[in-house]
């Protein structure tokens, strides 16, 4: 549904306005009943700002009265709800933002009442957990902009993760491992591209085959070789944290942006580079033309097949980088099926980010947040079973895909083979 459609359909607008208003009121009421009434009066919640082990200049922590904050959040949600019902707010994004923000703040204040909760640590771990998701999403963006769906990202990441750790362990050089992972990612993507472009295999089927092959192959190698020779093959160490001098002393931002390992720096760099490449270079224009209307692009002399090959392979290399992150970027060893659906969550992040690099990165952060929230909440001993908290990223993915939060339009030729 486009905005133009909404504008010319007044009943629909009114219904949407009503729905959002009611949802906001309900969120306010829910916050009041579940969190507000369950918060003990007089308790305080401490939000830590300083990250242990960072070089940042220390600043005082944020201490708030728990119950008052929760009531305040309930009030804000209810106020926006009432305002929405009375007047209507144009931007759905803002409404969703209010819902999410009030809910999350109230929830955290309630969960950490009488305790301390490190806010910067939370955001930092969101970024860390978002990295593989963002790389998967970027892989999706670059290949789908040229109209090739790659659902095999999960399998590519698994194989790259294993390749990275094995090569790095054997050569005792993490950068060789990283290169190997990127290469194997490109190779698998090239295989996918060859199948779907040359043989016109169903793109989804080919991707699923890569996933099954990836799961089987890595598990095979893992149980056949890695388990017996852990020290030789599955013990690489991880990339060291590189601190940018001076910049890493800024409170909050310093440890977040300037004290990370190379994969995270590369991810942030990739987001910027891909945005510029896609929207401000001839290559980007050709890519988007091939994705929207391959026939027109072909008529104008663009080599449709070549563009698709290049993009899918570049995407595979990015997914390879994402795979490397799982092993040599974070834990230093390979475990079976360690990607745990991150490739697919990346695809959801891509859709939520409307096939834009920056959008995809931002939505990956949301998934990263959902993912790290469950870890933090387990530490805080929230009376919710940890298994339910672990479901959070998957449920968020499904909600995002419904398009309730704003419908995304894929490139027009996405998923269709091109015949001259």
């Amino acid at each position, binding site marked *: 549904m486009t905005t133009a459609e909404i504008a010319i359909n007044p009943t629909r607008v009114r219904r949407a306005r009503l729905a959002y208003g009611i949802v906001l009121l309900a969120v306010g009421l829910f916050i009041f009943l579940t969190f507000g009434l369950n918060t003990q009066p007089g308790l305080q919640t401490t939000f830590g700002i300083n990250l242990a082990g960072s070089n940042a200049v220390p600043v005082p922590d944020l201490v708030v009265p728990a119950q008052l904050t929760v009531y305040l959040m309930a009030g804000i949600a209810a106020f926006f709800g009432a305002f929405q019902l009375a007047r209507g707010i144009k931007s759905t994004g803002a409404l969703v933002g209010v819902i999410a923000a009030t809910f999350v703040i109230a929830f955290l204040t309630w969960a950490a009442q009488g305790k301390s909760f490190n806010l910067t640590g939370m955001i930092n771990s969101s970024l860390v957990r978002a990295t593989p998701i963002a790389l998967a999403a970027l892989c999706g963006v670059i290949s789908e902009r040229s109209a090739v*769906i790659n*659902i095999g990202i999960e399998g590519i990441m698994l194989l790259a993760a294993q390749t990275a750790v094995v090569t790095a362990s054997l050569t005792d050089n993490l950068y060789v491992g990283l290169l190997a992972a990127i290469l194997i990612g490109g190779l698998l993507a090239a295989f996918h591209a060859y*199948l779907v472009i040359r*043989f016109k*295999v*169903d*793109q*989804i*089927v*080919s991707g*699923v*085959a*890569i*996933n*099954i*092959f*990836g*799961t*089987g*192959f890595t*598990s*095979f190698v893992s*149980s*056949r*070789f890695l388990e017996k020779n852990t020290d030789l093959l599955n013990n690489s160490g991880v990339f060291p944290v590189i601190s940018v001098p001076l910049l890493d002393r800024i409170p909050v931002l310093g440890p977040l942006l300037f004290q990370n390992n190379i994969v995270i720096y590369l991810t942030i760099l990739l987001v910027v580079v891909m945005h510029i490449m896609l929207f401000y270079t001839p290559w980007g224009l050709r890519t988007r033309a091939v994705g929207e209307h391959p026939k027109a692009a072909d008529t104008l002399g663009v080599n449709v097949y070549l563009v698709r090959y290049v993009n899918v392979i570049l995407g595979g290399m990015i997914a390879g980088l994402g795979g490397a992150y799982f092993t040599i970027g974070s834990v230093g060893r390979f475990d079976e099926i360690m990607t*745990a*659906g991150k490739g*697919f969550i990346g*695809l*959801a992040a891509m*859709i939520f980010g409307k096939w834009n690099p920056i959008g995809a990165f931002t939505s990956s952060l949301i998934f990263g947040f959902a993912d790290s929230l469950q870890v933090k909440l387990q530490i805080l001993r929230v009376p919710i*079973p940890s*298994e*339910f908290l*672990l*479901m959070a990223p*998957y*449920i968020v*993915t*499904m909600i995002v*895909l*419904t*398009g*309730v939060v704003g419908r995304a339009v*894929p490139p027009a030729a*996405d*998923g*269709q083979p091109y015949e001259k």
Partner: protein
Amino acid sequence: MTEKDKNKTKSSEGIGGGALREALRVPALAVLTGLLIGAIAIVASGSNVFEAYYALFVGSFGDPVRFYNGFQQFFSTGETAGLLRAIYPFTESLVTATPYIFAGLSVALGFRCGLFNIGAEGQFFIGALTSAFVGYSITGLPAFIHLPLAILAGMAGGALWGMIPGYLKARFGAHEVVNTIMMNWIAFRLSDWLLNGPMKASGFRPVTPNIEHTAELPRFFPDPLRLNWGFLLALAVAYIVYWFLFKTTIGFEIRSVGANPDAAKYAGMNIIRNFVMVMALAGALAGMAGASQVLGVDHWVGQGFSAGYGFDAIALALLGKSHPAGVVLAALLFGFLRSGATRMQSIAGVPIDIISIIQGLVIVFIAAPDIIRWLYRLKSVKVEETVLTRGWGR
């Protein structure tokens, strides 16, 4: 009806006469090529291929020497123990094939409607849990009520798990591939919680209690042999799915929606209803797979119960060309492979995951028959291809 049209109906129903050979050639060659490449992997991992594949054969069909001795014993003394031991591997293969038939039918049904159900894994698990729950929590019912009830519970659990992505697809255009996978992960987490909490049997292990005897699918042979009525049920269900797809109006609608949703819409068919119904039915079939495994074989559910059935099911549906008869054949093949691979692992030391590698390759070859035709220099034949999936939200 002209001759050409006749051929068309034949090819869309798949099985029959000369079309049969054509339909079997590519899958057979695909499996063969997969096994050959698998052999390379076995060599590369340092095992003996002949030893490994012989173990695979003995593990799936049985040891010829044991067969001979068993028969000799049976005819001379009337003692069946040796014979039963000889047919044990063969029956185990059929036992392994049983859930494959159900799960393969689940994915195949989805394909016929243009839906890609990767969620058979989660639906299988949920179905197993719900049927186990009915199996152990209700006591004092006669078997002829308790058993069907437990199977129905498995179907209902799976149907619910499949219906959610179906509805999201129909209503919001959310792609079922991603959603079914998310449902798989949610099912795993949910089962972790259930097996450690509400459904945990007394003791340390996170497993459900044993089901009541009245809920068990009866077995054909004395104890180590686990072949049960589930296998025949699976064959019957395969026939029902065939009948449903090709002999009923609803089946025709499903196939029309799968072949061309726009045309189906103009013909007045309800796309949304078909999507939801097919995903629910597919989920019910996968749920039955779980139920048959619990009620017929294990009698309890533990963690990692679904172990790859969902992904195997995709290979089965592709291999069987989404036709129930093809799925049954493919499921039997996989049953024998998997069952034999267990022995291959213990005797020749080849990890069972080799089968997954072979499966991945088989899927690629089936999905890209041109590769097989090119490898074996086959003449390319124009067969009407089933539409499997579509892009995001179309």
